[in-house]
Protein backbone atom coordinates (compact mmCIF):
# COMPACT_ATOMS: atom_id res chain seq x y z
CA UNK A 1 0.00 0.00 0.00
CA UNK A 2 2.75 2.45 0.96
CA UNK A 3 4.71 1.47 -2.14
CA UNK A 4 1.56 1.94 -4.20
CA UNK A 5 1.13 5.48 -2.91
CA UNK A 6 4.79 6.31 -3.48
CA UNK A 7 4.63 4.93 -7.01
CA UNK A 8 1.51 6.93 -7.82
CA UNK A 9 3.04 10.13 -6.47
CA UNK A 10 6.20 9.56 -8.51
CA UNK A 11 4.13 8.86 -11.61
CA UNK A 12 2.30 12.14 -11.18
CA UNK A 13 5.49 14.23 -11.21
CA UNK A 14 5.92 14.25 -15.01
CA UNK A 15 2.24 15.11 -15.44
CA UNK A 16 2.52 18.02 -13.01
CA UNK A 17 5.68 19.23 -14.77
CA UNK A 18 3.91 18.94 -18.11
CA UNK A 19 1.06 21.02 -16.78
CA UNK A 20 3.36 23.81 -15.60
CA UNK A 21 5.18 23.88 -18.96
CA UNK A 22 1.92 23.96 -20.91
CA UNK A 23 0.43 26.63 -18.66
CA UNK A 24 3.55 28.73 -19.03
CA UNK A 25 3.52 28.44 -22.83
CA UNK A 26 -0.19 29.19 -23.08
CA UNK A 27 0.02 32.12 -20.68
CA UNK A 28 2.86 33.62 -22.71
CA UNK A 29 0.98 32.99 -25.95
CA UNK A 30 -1.86 35.24 -24.84
CA UNK A 31 -1.64 38.69 -26.40
CA UNK A 32 -0.40 41.44 -24.09
CA UNK A 33 1.35 41.21 -20.74
CA UNK A 34 0.48 42.30 -17.19
CA UNK A 35 1.61 45.86 -17.80
CA UNK A 36 -0.18 46.50 -21.07
CA UNK A 37 -3.29 45.22 -19.32
CA UNK A 38 -3.04 47.97 -16.71
CA UNK A 39 -4.50 50.30 -19.31
CA UNK A 40 -2.93 53.39 -17.85
CA UNK A 41 -3.15 55.97 -20.66
CA UNK A 42 -0.35 58.12 -19.22
CA UNK A 43 2.26 55.37 -19.25
CA UNK A 44 5.12 55.58 -21.75
CA UNK A 45 6.74 52.72 -23.62
CA UNK A 46 9.98 53.38 -21.68
CA UNK A 47 8.12 52.97 -18.38
CA UNK A 48 6.59 49.71 -19.60
CA UNK A 49 10.01 48.39 -20.55
CA UNK A 50 11.39 49.32 -17.13
CA UNK A 51 8.48 47.59 -15.36
CA UNK A 52 8.98 44.48 -17.49
CA UNK A 53 12.63 44.49 -16.52
CA UNK A 54 11.78 44.70 -12.81
CA UNK A 55 9.26 41.84 -13.09
CA UNK A 56 11.86 39.72 -14.90
CA UNK A 57 9.77 39.51 -18.06
CA UNK A 58 12.65 40.50 -20.33
CA UNK A 59 14.60 37.30 -19.80
CA UNK A 60 14.21 34.56 -22.44
CA UNK A 61 11.09 32.43 -21.79
CA UNK A 62 12.96 29.27 -20.78
CA UNK A 63 14.96 31.27 -18.21
CA UNK A 64 11.76 32.76 -16.84
CA UNK A 65 10.23 29.29 -16.52
CA UNK A 66 13.31 27.88 -14.87
CA UNK A 67 13.39 30.75 -12.32
CA UNK A 68 9.73 30.15 -11.55
CA UNK A 69 10.25 26.41 -11.12
CA UNK A 70 13.27 26.85 -8.83
CA UNK A 71 11.46 29.30 -6.59
CA UNK A 72 8.40 27.01 -6.53
CA UNK A 73 10.58 24.16 -5.29
CA UNK A 74 11.87 26.51 -2.61
CA UNK A 75 8.26 27.02 -1.56
CA UNK A 76 7.92 30.47 -3.07
CA UNK A 77 4.97 31.11 -5.39
CA UNK A 78 6.24 34.56 -6.31
CA UNK A 79 4.62 37.99 -6.39
CA UNK A 80 1.36 38.72 -8.13
CA UNK A 81 1.91 41.56 -10.57
CA UNK A 82 -1.62 42.94 -10.71
CA UNK A 83 -2.42 42.62 -6.99
CA UNK A 84 1.09 43.64 -5.93
CA UNK A 85 1.02 41.05 -3.13
CA UNK A 86 2.63 37.64 -2.63
CA UNK A 87 0.67 34.98 -4.53
CA UNK A 88 0.50 32.82 -1.39
CA UNK A 89 -1.19 35.64 0.55
CA UNK A 90 -3.76 36.24 -2.18
CA UNK A 91 -4.64 32.55 -2.36
CA UNK A 92 -4.81 32.22 1.44
CA UNK A 93 -7.18 35.20 1.60
CA UNK A 94 -9.54 33.71 -0.95
CA UNK A 95 -9.47 30.07 0.05
CA UNK A 96 -12.12 30.13 2.79
CA UNK A 97 -15.23 31.26 0.87
CA UNK A 98 -14.42 28.98 -2.06
CA UNK A 99 -13.86 25.93 0.13
CA UNK A 100 -16.98 26.71 2.17
CA UNK A 101 -19.11 26.87 -0.96
CA UNK A 102 -17.43 23.79 -2.43
CA UNK A 103 -17.84 21.62 0.64
CA UNK A 104 -21.32 22.93 1.38
CA UNK A 105 -22.60 22.16 -2.10
CA UNK A 106 -20.90 18.77 -2.06
CA UNK A 107 -22.63 17.92 1.24
CA UNK A 108 -26.01 19.04 -0.12
CA UNK A 109 -25.39 16.90 -3.18
CA UNK A 110 -24.27 13.93 -1.13
CA UNK A 111 -27.16 13.93 1.34
CA UNK A 112 -30.05 14.79 -0.97
CA UNK A 113 -28.52 12.98 -3.95
CA UNK A 114 -28.17 9.70 -2.06
CA UNK A 115 -31.66 10.07 -0.61
CA UNK A 116 -33.30 10.77 -3.98
CA UNK A 117 -31.24 8.12 -5.72
CA UNK A 118 -32.19 5.41 -3.22
CA UNK A 119 -35.87 6.29 -3.27
CA UNK A 120 -35.81 6.31 -7.06
CA UNK A 121 -34.20 2.89 -7.26
CA UNK A 122 -36.40 1.27 -4.64
CA UNK A 123 -39.54 2.62 -6.25
CA UNK A 124 -38.33 2.07 -9.78
CA UNK A 125 -40.71 2.87 -12.64
CA UNK A 126 -43.23 4.55 -10.32
CA UNK A 127 -44.34 8.15 -10.50
CA UNK A 128 -41.92 9.23 -7.77
CA UNK A 129 -39.03 7.61 -9.65
CA UNK A 130 -39.97 9.51 -12.81
CA UNK A 131 -40.18 12.76 -10.87
CA UNK A 132 -36.75 12.25 -9.30
CA UNK A 133 -35.09 11.04 -12.50
CA UNK A 134 -36.40 13.95 -14.53
CA UNK A 135 -35.54 16.28 -11.65
CA UNK A 136 -31.98 14.96 -11.50
CA UNK A 137 -31.60 15.41 -15.24
CA UNK A 138 -32.92 18.96 -14.91
CA UNK A 139 -30.35 19.60 -12.19
CA UNK A 140 -27.45 18.66 -14.43
CA UNK A 141 -28.96 20.42 -17.47
CA UNK A 142 -29.54 23.84 -15.94
CA UNK A 143 -26.73 26.34 -16.53
CA UNK A 144 -25.41 27.41 -13.12
CA UNK A 145 -25.19 31.06 -14.06
CA UNK A 146 -28.85 31.09 -15.08
CA UNK A 147 -29.88 29.42 -11.81
CA UNK A 148 -27.74 31.95 -9.96
CA UNK A 149 -29.37 34.88 -11.75
CA UNK A 150 -32.85 33.47 -11.09
CA UNK A 151 -31.97 32.99 -7.42
CA UNK A 152 -30.79 36.59 -7.14
CA UNK A 153 -33.81 37.95 -8.97
CA UNK A 154 -36.46 36.01 -7.07
CA UNK A 155 -34.98 35.01 -3.69
CA UNK A 156 -32.80 38.02 -3.12
CA UNK A 157 -34.25 41.03 -4.90
CA UNK A 158 -37.83 39.74 -4.95
CA UNK A 159 -38.30 38.16 -1.56
CA UNK A 160 -35.33 39.74 0.17
CA UNK A 161 -34.42 36.51 1.95
CA UNK A 162 -30.74 36.52 1.04
CA UNK A 163 -28.12 39.10 0.09
CA UNK A 164 -27.46 39.16 -3.64
CA UNK A 165 -23.69 39.50 -3.72
CA UNK A 166 -20.44 39.80 -1.87
CA UNK A 167 -19.36 38.15 1.35
CA UNK A 168 -20.22 40.64 4.08
CA UNK A 169 -22.85 43.32 4.53
CA UNK A 170 -21.07 46.64 3.96
CA UNK A 171 -20.77 48.73 7.10
CA UNK A 172 -21.78 45.86 9.36
CA UNK A 173 -19.67 45.82 12.52
CA UNK A 174 -21.30 42.97 14.33
CA UNK A 175 -19.73 41.19 17.33
CA UNK A 176 -18.34 37.67 17.07
CA UNK A 177 -21.03 35.16 16.22
CA UNK A 178 -23.05 37.61 14.13
CA UNK A 179 -20.28 38.50 11.70
CA UNK A 180 -19.86 34.81 10.87
CA UNK A 181 -23.61 34.37 10.51
CA UNK A 182 -23.59 37.31 8.14
CA UNK A 183 -20.99 35.60 5.95
CA UNK A 184 -22.93 32.32 6.10
CA UNK A 185 -26.07 34.20 5.04
CA UNK A 186 -24.17 35.47 1.98
CA UNK A 187 -22.99 31.98 1.12
CA UNK A 188 -26.42 30.31 1.13
CA UNK A 189 -27.44 31.15 -2.44
CA UNK A 190 -24.18 30.27 -4.22
CA UNK A 191 -23.95 27.03 -2.24
CA UNK A 192 -27.52 26.09 -3.09
CA UNK A 193 -27.06 26.85 -6.77
CA UNK A 194 -23.95 24.68 -6.99
CA UNK A 195 -25.64 22.05 -4.84
CA UNK A 196 -28.46 21.56 -7.33
CA UNK A 197 -26.09 20.31 -10.03
CA UNK A 198 -24.38 18.13 -7.46
CA UNK A 199 -27.68 16.57 -6.32
CA UNK A 200 -28.50 15.74 -9.92
CA UNK A 201 -25.32 13.87 -10.75
CA UNK A 202 -25.19 12.13 -7.36
CA UNK A 203 -28.81 10.95 -7.59
CA UNK A 204 -28.20 9.49 -11.05
CA UNK A 205 -25.10 7.68 -9.84
CA UNK A 206 -26.76 6.27 -6.74
CA UNK A 207 -29.89 5.21 -8.60
CA UNK A 208 -28.04 3.15 -11.17
CA UNK A 209 -25.72 1.72 -8.49
CA UNK A 210 -28.71 0.71 -6.35
CA UNK A 211 -30.51 -0.87 -9.31
CA UNK A 212 -27.38 -2.95 -10.02
CA UNK A 213 -27.02 -4.05 -6.42
CA UNK A 214 -30.71 -4.77 -5.83
CA UNK A 215 -30.67 -7.38 -8.59
CA UNK A 216 -27.77 -9.29 -7.06
CA UNK A 217 -28.02 -12.73 -5.54
CA UNK A 218 -27.19 -11.71 -2.01
CA UNK A 219 -30.11 -9.31 -1.97
CA UNK A 220 -32.37 -12.15 -3.09
CA UNK A 221 -30.87 -14.29 -0.30
CA UNK A 222 -31.58 -11.53 2.20
CA UNK A 223 -35.18 -11.37 0.99
CA UNK A 224 -35.48 -15.16 1.17
CA UNK A 225 -34.26 -15.05 4.75
CA UNK A 226 -37.25 -12.85 5.47
CA UNK A 227 -35.37 -9.69 6.34
CA UNK A 228 -37.41 -6.53 6.30
CA UNK A 229 -37.18 -4.40 3.17
CA UNK A 230 -35.74 -1.60 5.27
CA UNK A 231 -32.82 -3.69 6.47
CA UNK A 232 -32.21 -5.04 2.99
CA UNK A 233 -32.14 -1.61 1.39
CA UNK A 234 -30.25 0.35 4.00
CA UNK A 235 -28.01 -2.29 5.59
CA UNK A 236 -27.20 -4.58 2.70
CA UNK A 237 -27.76 -2.84 -0.60
CA UNK A 238 -26.94 0.81 0.10
CA UNK A 239 -23.48 0.06 1.45
CA UNK A 240 -22.47 -1.59 -1.78
CA UNK A 241 -24.24 0.93 -3.95
CA UNK A 242 -22.25 3.72 -2.30
CA UNK A 243 -18.88 2.29 -3.33
CA UNK A 244 -18.77 4.23 -6.62
CA UNK A 245 -19.81 7.37 -4.74
CA UNK A 246 -16.42 7.29 -3.00
CA UNK A 247 -14.82 7.65 -6.41
CA UNK A 248 -17.14 10.50 -7.30
CA UNK A 249 -16.21 12.32 -4.09
CA UNK A 250 -12.50 11.96 -4.82
CA UNK A 251 -12.99 13.31 -8.30
CA UNK A 252 -14.90 16.32 -6.92
CA UNK A 253 -11.92 17.42 -4.84
CA UNK A 254 -10.30 19.68 -7.46
CA UNK A 255 -13.67 21.38 -7.98
CA UNK A 256 -13.73 22.36 -4.31
CA UNK A 257 -10.53 24.41 -4.54
CA UNK A 258 -10.68 25.15 -8.26
CA UNK A 259 -13.55 27.35 -7.36
CA UNK A 260 -16.73 27.86 -9.24
CA UNK A 261 -15.60 30.65 -11.54
CA UNK A 262 -19.06 31.33 -12.88
CA UNK A 263 -20.89 31.12 -9.56
CA UNK A 264 -18.38 33.38 -7.84
CA UNK A 265 -18.64 35.79 -10.73
CA UNK A 266 -22.44 35.89 -10.59
CA UNK A 267 -22.54 36.40 -6.82
CA UNK A 268 -19.40 38.60 -6.71
CA UNK A 269 -17.78 36.31 -4.16
CA UNK A 270 -14.09 37.15 -3.67
CA UNK A 271 -12.89 33.54 -3.95
CA UNK A 272 -10.36 31.47 -5.86
CA UNK A 273 -12.56 31.05 -8.92
CA UNK A 274 -13.00 34.76 -9.42
CA UNK A 275 -9.30 35.26 -8.68
CA UNK A 276 -8.22 32.80 -11.38
CA UNK A 277 -10.54 34.50 -13.86
CA UNK A 278 -9.02 37.90 -13.04
CA UNK A 279 -5.53 36.42 -13.19
CA UNK A 280 -6.09 35.37 -16.79
CA UNK A 281 -7.74 38.63 -17.82
CA UNK A 282 -4.88 40.63 -16.26
CA UNK A 283 -2.17 38.31 -17.66
CA UNK A 284 -0.85 37.93 -14.12
CA UNK A 285 1.56 35.09 -14.94
CA UNK A 286 2.62 34.09 -11.40
CA UNK A 287 -1.01 33.96 -10.31
CA UNK A 288 -2.07 31.94 -13.38
CA UNK A 289 0.74 29.46 -12.77
CA UNK A 290 -0.13 29.10 -9.08
CA UNK A 291 -3.84 28.58 -9.83
CA UNK A 292 -3.20 25.82 -12.34
CA UNK A 293 -0.62 24.10 -10.15
CA UNK A 294 -2.99 24.16 -7.18
CA UNK A 295 -5.79 22.73 -9.28
CA UNK A 296 -3.59 20.09 -10.88
CA UNK A 297 -2.19 18.94 -7.53
CA UNK A 298 -5.75 18.63 -6.23
CA UNK A 299 -6.72 16.64 -9.32
CA UNK A 300 -3.85 14.22 -8.85
CA UNK A 301 -4.55 13.99 -5.12
CA UNK A 302 -8.28 13.52 -5.72
CA UNK A 303 -7.64 10.69 -8.18
CA UNK A 304 -5.29 9.02 -5.72
CA UNK A 305 -7.75 9.39 -2.83
CA UNK A 306 -10.54 8.06 -5.04
CA UNK A 307 -8.54 4.93 -5.81
CA UNK A 308 -7.40 4.44 -2.21
CA UNK A 309 -10.90 5.08 -0.91
CA UNK A 310 -12.26 2.56 -3.36
CA UNK A 311 -9.87 -0.09 -2.07
CA UNK A 312 -10.72 0.83 1.50
CA UNK A 313 -14.48 0.46 1.16
CA UNK A 314 -14.28 -2.53 -1.16
CA UNK A 315 -11.92 -5.16 0.21
CA UNK A 316 -12.21 -7.17 -3.01
CA UNK A 317 -9.93 -4.61 -4.61
CA UNK A 318 -6.26 -4.68 -3.75
CA UNK A 319 -3.43 -2.48 -4.85
CA UNK A 320 0.11 -3.60 -4.75
Amino acid sequence: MATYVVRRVLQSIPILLGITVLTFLLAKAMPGDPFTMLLNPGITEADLERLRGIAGLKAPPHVQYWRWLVSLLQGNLGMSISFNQPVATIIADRLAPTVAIGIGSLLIGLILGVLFGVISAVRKYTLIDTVFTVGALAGISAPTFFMGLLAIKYLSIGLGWFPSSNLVTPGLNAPFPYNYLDVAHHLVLPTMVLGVASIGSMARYVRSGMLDVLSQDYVRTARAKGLSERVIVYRHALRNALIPVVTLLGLSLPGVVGGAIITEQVFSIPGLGRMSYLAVLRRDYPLIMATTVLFAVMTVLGNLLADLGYAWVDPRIRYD
Partner: protein
Amino acid sequence: MALPEQDVREIGALQGHRVEVETWGRIFWRRFRRNRQALAGCAVLLFLIAISVGAPWIAPHDRDYADLTKIELPPSREHPLGTDQIGRDNLTRLLYAGRISLLVGVVAVAVSISIGTLLGAVAGYVGGWVDNIIMRVADIILSFPLLVLLIVLASIIPPAIPSHYATMAVIGFVSWPGVARLVRGEFLSLREREFVEAGRAMGAGTNRMIFRHMLPNSVAPLIVSATLGVAGAILTESALSFLGLGVQPPLPSWGNMLTDALTWRVLAMKPWLWVPPGIMIFVAVMAINMVGDGLRDALDPRLKND
Protein backbone atom coordinates in the same frame (compact mmCIF):
# COMPACT_ATOMS: atom_id res chain seq x y z
CA MET B 1 -22.93 -12.85 -25.62
CA ALA B 2 -25.30 -12.75 -28.55
CA LEU B 3 -24.51 -15.01 -31.46
CA PRO B 4 -24.01 -13.45 -34.88
CA GLU B 5 -27.18 -13.41 -36.93
CA GLN B 6 -25.96 -15.94 -39.45
CA ASP B 7 -25.01 -18.48 -36.78
CA VAL B 8 -28.42 -18.19 -35.20
CA ARG B 9 -30.07 -18.86 -38.55
CA GLU B 10 -27.89 -21.86 -39.25
CA ILE B 11 -28.34 -23.42 -35.85
CA GLY B 12 -32.07 -22.86 -36.15
CA ALA B 13 -32.10 -24.44 -39.60
CA LEU B 14 -30.21 -27.51 -38.37
CA GLN B 15 -32.86 -28.01 -35.73
CA GLY B 16 -35.61 -27.63 -38.30
CA HIS B 17 -36.87 -24.19 -37.25
CA ARG B 18 -37.22 -21.11 -39.33
CA VAL B 19 -35.60 -18.43 -37.29
CA GLU B 20 -36.64 -14.80 -37.36
CA VAL B 21 -33.69 -12.65 -36.45
CA GLU B 22 -34.12 -9.09 -35.31
CA THR B 23 -31.54 -6.82 -36.87
CA TRP B 24 -29.48 -4.55 -34.72
CA GLY B 25 -31.36 -1.48 -35.93
CA ARG B 26 -34.73 -3.08 -35.16
CA ILE B 27 -33.69 -3.99 -31.63
CA PHE B 28 -32.48 -0.46 -31.11
CA TRP B 29 -35.66 1.13 -32.41
CA ARG B 30 -37.92 -1.22 -30.41
CA ARG B 31 -36.21 -0.17 -27.19
CA PHE B 32 -35.79 3.49 -28.00
CA ARG B 33 -39.46 3.78 -28.96
CA ARG B 34 -40.56 2.53 -25.54
CA ASN B 35 -38.61 5.27 -23.79
CA ARG B 36 -41.06 8.13 -23.42
CA GLN B 37 -38.47 10.54 -22.04
CA ALA B 38 -36.20 9.98 -25.01
CA LEU B 39 -39.05 10.48 -27.46
CA ALA B 40 -40.09 13.69 -25.71
CA GLY B 41 -36.48 14.86 -25.87
CA CYS B 42 -36.38 14.07 -29.60
CA ALA B 43 -39.57 16.02 -30.23
CA VAL B 44 -38.35 19.09 -28.33
CA LEU B 45 -34.98 18.90 -30.03
CA LEU B 46 -36.52 18.67 -33.50
CA PHE B 47 -38.68 21.68 -32.68
CA LEU B 48 -35.65 23.70 -31.54
CA ILE B 49 -33.71 22.73 -34.67
CA ALA B 50 -36.69 23.68 -36.83
CA ILE B 51 -37.13 27.16 -35.34
CA SER B 52 -33.37 27.77 -35.42
CA VAL B 53 -32.90 26.67 -39.01
CA GLY B 54 -36.05 28.53 -39.99
CA ALA B 55 -35.06 31.70 -38.12
CA PRO B 56 -34.56 33.83 -41.27
CA TRP B 57 -38.13 33.01 -42.36
CA ILE B 58 -40.03 33.06 -39.08
CA ALA B 59 -38.22 35.82 -37.19
CA PRO B 60 -40.47 38.90 -37.03
CA HIS B 61 -37.69 41.47 -37.45
CA ASP B 62 -34.16 41.96 -38.76
CA ARG B 63 -31.50 40.37 -36.53
CA ASP B 64 -29.25 43.40 -36.11
CA TYR B 65 -31.69 46.23 -36.83
CA ALA B 66 -31.41 48.62 -33.91
CA ASP B 67 -34.21 51.10 -33.37
CA LEU B 68 -32.86 53.55 -30.84
CA THR B 69 -36.30 54.99 -30.23
CA LYS B 70 -37.44 51.63 -28.86
CA ILE B 71 -34.92 50.66 -26.20
CA GLU B 72 -35.65 47.95 -23.62
CA LEU B 73 -39.36 47.87 -24.34
CA PRO B 74 -41.31 45.27 -22.36
CA PRO B 75 -43.02 42.51 -24.37
CA SER B 76 -45.73 43.80 -26.68
CA ARG B 77 -47.62 42.58 -29.72
CA GLU B 78 -44.97 43.96 -32.06
CA HIS B 79 -42.08 42.67 -29.97
CA PRO B 80 -43.30 39.51 -28.20
CA LEU B 81 -40.16 39.34 -26.05
CA GLY B 82 -39.49 43.06 -25.93
CA THR B 83 -36.42 44.85 -27.23
CA ASP B 84 -32.82 44.96 -25.98
CA GLN B 85 -30.47 47.75 -24.89
CA ILE B 86 -30.08 49.15 -28.39
CA GLY B 87 -33.61 48.49 -29.56
CA ARG B 88 -33.21 45.18 -31.38
CA ASP B 89 -36.08 42.68 -31.33
CA ASN B 90 -35.35 40.13 -28.62
CA LEU B 91 -37.40 37.25 -30.07
CA THR B 92 -35.59 37.58 -33.39
CA ARG B 93 -32.23 37.47 -31.67
CA LEU B 94 -33.33 34.49 -29.57
CA LEU B 95 -34.17 32.50 -32.71
CA TYR B 96 -30.89 33.39 -34.41
CA ALA B 97 -29.00 32.65 -31.20
CA GLY B 98 -30.35 29.10 -31.39
CA ARG B 99 -28.58 28.61 -34.71
CA ILE B 100 -25.27 29.69 -33.26
CA SER B 101 -25.57 27.83 -29.96
CA LEU B 102 -26.72 24.54 -31.50
CA LEU B 103 -24.14 24.80 -34.28
CA VAL B 104 -21.30 25.52 -31.86
CA GLY B 105 -22.37 22.53 -29.75
CA VAL B 106 -22.49 20.13 -32.69
CA VAL B 107 -19.29 21.28 -34.38
CA ALA B 108 -17.35 21.37 -31.10
CA VAL B 109 -18.33 17.74 -30.50
CA ALA B 110 -17.45 16.81 -34.07
CA VAL B 111 -13.98 18.22 -33.40
CA SER B 112 -13.54 16.45 -30.08
CA ILE B 113 -14.92 13.15 -31.38
CA SER B 114 -12.59 13.25 -34.40
CA ILE B 115 -9.45 14.00 -32.40
CA GLY B 116 -10.43 11.74 -29.50
CA THR B 117 -11.39 8.78 -31.68
CA LEU B 118 -8.24 8.96 -33.76
CA LEU B 119 -5.88 9.31 -30.80
CA GLY B 120 -7.77 6.82 -28.63
CA ALA B 121 -7.83 4.25 -31.44
CA VAL B 122 -4.12 4.60 -32.12
CA ALA B 123 -3.30 4.46 -28.39
CA GLY B 124 -5.43 1.37 -27.83
CA TYR B 125 -4.38 -0.49 -30.96
CA VAL B 126 -0.69 0.31 -31.11
CA GLY B 127 -0.04 0.38 -27.36
CA GLY B 128 3.47 0.76 -25.96
CA TRP B 129 5.12 4.18 -25.82
CA VAL B 130 2.68 5.70 -28.31
CA ASP B 131 -0.17 4.83 -25.97
CA ASN B 132 1.80 6.18 -23.05
CA ILE B 133 2.46 9.56 -24.62
CA ILE B 134 -1.09 10.06 -25.91
CA MET B 135 -2.69 9.17 -22.61
CA ARG B 136 -0.28 11.31 -20.55
CA VAL B 137 -1.18 14.31 -22.73
CA ALA B 138 -4.83 13.46 -22.11
CA ASP B 139 -4.13 13.33 -18.35
CA ILE B 140 -2.47 16.72 -18.50
CA ILE B 141 -5.43 18.33 -20.26
CA LEU B 142 -7.85 16.68 -17.83
CA SER B 143 -5.90 18.08 -14.86
CA PHE B 144 -6.41 21.66 -16.00
CA PRO B 145 -9.19 23.76 -14.54
CA LEU B 146 -11.44 23.52 -17.58
CA LEU B 147 -12.81 27.04 -17.65
CA VAL B 148 -9.40 28.64 -17.09
CA LEU B 149 -7.99 26.61 -19.97
CA LEU B 150 -10.91 27.65 -22.17
CA ILE B 151 -10.51 31.32 -21.28
CA VAL B 152 -6.78 31.22 -21.97
CA LEU B 153 -7.25 29.45 -25.31
CA ALA B 154 -10.08 31.80 -26.28
CA SER B 155 -7.83 34.80 -25.72
CA ILE B 156 -4.97 33.26 -27.74
CA ILE B 157 -7.03 32.79 -30.89
CA PRO B 158 -6.57 35.89 -33.08
CA PRO B 159 -9.60 38.20 -33.13
CA ALA B 160 -9.67 38.01 -36.94
CA ILE B 161 -11.21 34.56 -36.67
CA PRO B 162 -15.01 34.80 -36.19
CA SER B 163 -15.77 34.22 -32.53
CA HIS B 164 -18.15 31.32 -33.04
CA TYR B 165 -15.54 29.38 -35.01
CA ALA B 166 -13.00 30.09 -32.30
CA THR B 167 -15.42 28.89 -29.63
CA MET B 168 -16.11 25.64 -31.50
CA ALA B 169 -12.40 24.96 -31.90
CA VAL B 170 -11.55 25.75 -28.31
CA ILE B 171 -14.32 23.62 -26.79
CA GLY B 172 -13.59 20.78 -29.21
CA PHE B 173 -9.92 20.84 -28.45
CA VAL B 174 -10.23 20.63 -24.67
CA SER B 175 -12.89 17.89 -24.77
CA TRP B 176 -11.08 15.17 -26.70
CA PRO B 177 -9.34 13.41 -23.76
CA GLY B 178 -12.60 11.92 -22.46
CA VAL B 179 -13.39 10.51 -25.90
CA ALA B 180 -9.85 9.19 -26.29
CA ARG B 181 -10.12 7.32 -22.98
CA LEU B 182 -13.43 5.79 -24.04
CA VAL B 183 -12.20 4.65 -27.46
CA ARG B 184 -8.93 3.37 -26.04
CA GLY B 185 -10.82 1.27 -23.50
CA GLU B 186 -13.03 -0.19 -26.24
CA PHE B 187 -9.98 -0.97 -28.37
CA LEU B 188 -8.11 -2.64 -25.54
CA SER B 189 -10.94 -5.11 -25.11
CA LEU B 190 -11.59 -5.51 -28.85
CA ARG B 191 -7.91 -6.25 -29.43
CA GLU B 192 -8.27 -9.54 -27.58
CA ARG B 193 -11.24 -10.69 -29.66
CA GLU B 194 -10.93 -13.41 -32.27
CA PHE B 195 -12.11 -11.38 -35.25
CA VAL B 196 -9.24 -8.96 -34.71
CA GLU B 197 -6.76 -11.78 -34.49
CA ALA B 198 -8.26 -13.29 -37.64
CA GLY B 199 -8.06 -9.97 -39.46
CA ARG B 200 -4.44 -9.57 -38.57
CA ALA B 201 -3.65 -13.16 -39.50
CA MET B 202 -5.15 -12.44 -42.93
CA GLY B 203 -2.71 -9.61 -43.34
CA ALA B 204 -4.90 -6.55 -42.76
CA GLY B 205 -2.81 -3.44 -42.12
CA THR B 206 -3.15 -1.13 -39.14
CA ASN B 207 -5.34 1.38 -40.97
CA ARG B 208 -7.69 -1.28 -42.23
CA MET B 209 -7.91 -2.95 -38.82
CA ILE B 210 -8.66 0.30 -37.02
CA PHE B 211 -11.09 1.89 -39.45
CA ARG B 212 -12.80 -1.08 -41.08
CA HIS B 213 -12.97 -3.58 -38.28
CA MET B 214 -12.54 -2.10 -34.83
CA LEU B 215 -14.10 1.36 -35.06
CA PRO B 216 -17.45 0.08 -36.36
CA ASN B 217 -17.54 -2.14 -33.28
CA SER B 218 -17.08 0.86 -30.97
CA VAL B 219 -19.74 3.02 -32.57
CA ALA B 220 -22.46 2.51 -29.95
CA PRO B 221 -20.65 4.09 -26.98
CA LEU B 222 -19.33 6.82 -29.27
CA ILE B 223 -22.84 7.79 -30.36
CA VAL B 224 -23.94 8.07 -26.73
CA SER B 225 -20.85 10.02 -25.76
CA ALA B 226 -21.27 12.38 -28.71
CA THR B 227 -24.90 13.08 -27.89
CA LEU B 228 -24.25 13.82 -24.24
CA GLY B 229 -21.18 15.77 -25.39
CA VAL B 230 -23.33 18.14 -27.44
CA ALA B 231 -25.34 18.95 -24.32
CA GLY B 232 -22.13 19.62 -22.42
CA ALA B 233 -20.68 21.73 -25.24
CA ILE B 234 -23.81 23.89 -25.38
CA LEU B 235 -23.55 24.47 -21.63
CA THR B 236 -19.85 25.32 -21.95
CA GLU B 237 -20.46 27.68 -24.86
CA SER B 238 -23.18 29.46 -22.94
CA ALA B 239 -20.93 29.89 -19.91
CA LEU B 240 -18.03 31.20 -22.00
CA SER B 241 -20.24 33.57 -23.96
CA PHE B 242 -21.93 34.70 -20.74
CA LEU B 243 -18.49 35.72 -19.44
CA GLY B 244 -17.93 37.59 -22.70
CA LEU B 245 -15.22 35.22 -23.93
CA GLY B 246 -17.15 33.01 -26.33
CA VAL B 247 -19.43 34.13 -29.13
CA GLN B 248 -19.16 37.90 -29.50
CA PRO B 249 -22.02 40.30 -30.18
CA PRO B 250 -23.48 41.41 -32.58
CA LEU B 251 -23.63 37.66 -33.31
CA PRO B 252 -26.24 36.43 -30.79
CA SER B 253 -25.84 33.23 -28.77
CA TRP B 254 -28.05 32.11 -25.91
CA GLY B 255 -25.11 32.61 -23.56
CA ASN B 256 -24.14 36.13 -24.58
CA MET B 257 -27.77 37.26 -24.42
CA LEU B 258 -27.50 36.73 -20.66
CA THR B 259 -24.34 38.81 -20.18
CA ASP B 260 -26.23 42.02 -19.49
CA ALA B 261 -28.10 40.37 -16.62
CA LEU B 262 -24.91 40.89 -14.62
CA THR B 263 -25.98 44.50 -14.20
CA TRP B 264 -28.46 44.99 -11.43
CA ARG B 265 -30.85 47.10 -13.48
CA VAL B 266 -31.35 44.51 -16.21
CA LEU B 267 -31.42 41.64 -13.72
CA ALA B 268 -34.06 43.20 -11.53
CA MET B 269 -36.18 45.22 -13.93
CA LYS B 270 -35.87 43.67 -17.40
CA PRO B 271 -36.36 39.92 -16.98
CA TRP B 272 -37.69 39.55 -20.55
CA LEU B 273 -34.16 40.21 -21.77
CA TRP B 274 -32.43 37.35 -19.96
CA VAL B 275 -34.98 34.78 -18.78
CA PRO B 276 -35.96 33.52 -22.28
CA PRO B 277 -32.38 32.73 -23.45
CA GLY B 278 -31.70 31.05 -20.10
CA ILE B 279 -34.75 28.87 -20.53
CA MET B 280 -33.70 28.02 -24.09
CA ILE B 281 -30.28 26.79 -22.91
CA PHE B 282 -31.91 24.71 -20.19
CA VAL B 283 -34.54 23.21 -22.50
CA ALA B 284 -32.04 22.41 -25.26
CA VAL B 285 -29.54 20.79 -22.90
CA MET B 286 -32.26 18.85 -21.09
CA ALA B 287 -33.74 17.57 -24.37
CA ILE B 288 -30.34 16.44 -25.66
CA ASN B 289 -29.54 14.75 -22.35
CA MET B 290 -32.86 12.89 -22.52
CA VAL B 291 -32.09 11.68 -26.03
CA GLY B 292 -28.58 10.70 -24.92
CA ASP B 293 -29.88 8.73 -21.94
CA GLY B 294 -32.39 7.03 -24.22
CA LEU B 295 -29.68 6.12 -26.71
CA ARG B 296 -27.54 4.70 -23.94
CA ASP B 297 -30.35 2.56 -22.56
CA ALA B 298 -31.19 1.33 -26.05
CA LEU B 299 -27.60 0.64 -27.12
CA ASP B 300 -26.06 -0.61 -23.88
CA PRO B 301 -25.31 -4.31 -24.33
CA ARG B 302 -25.47 -4.87 -20.58
CA LEU B 303 -29.21 -4.25 -20.67
CA LYS B 304 -29.79 -6.71 -23.52
CA ASN B 305 -32.29 -8.95 -21.77
CA ASP B 306 -34.89 -6.52 -20.57
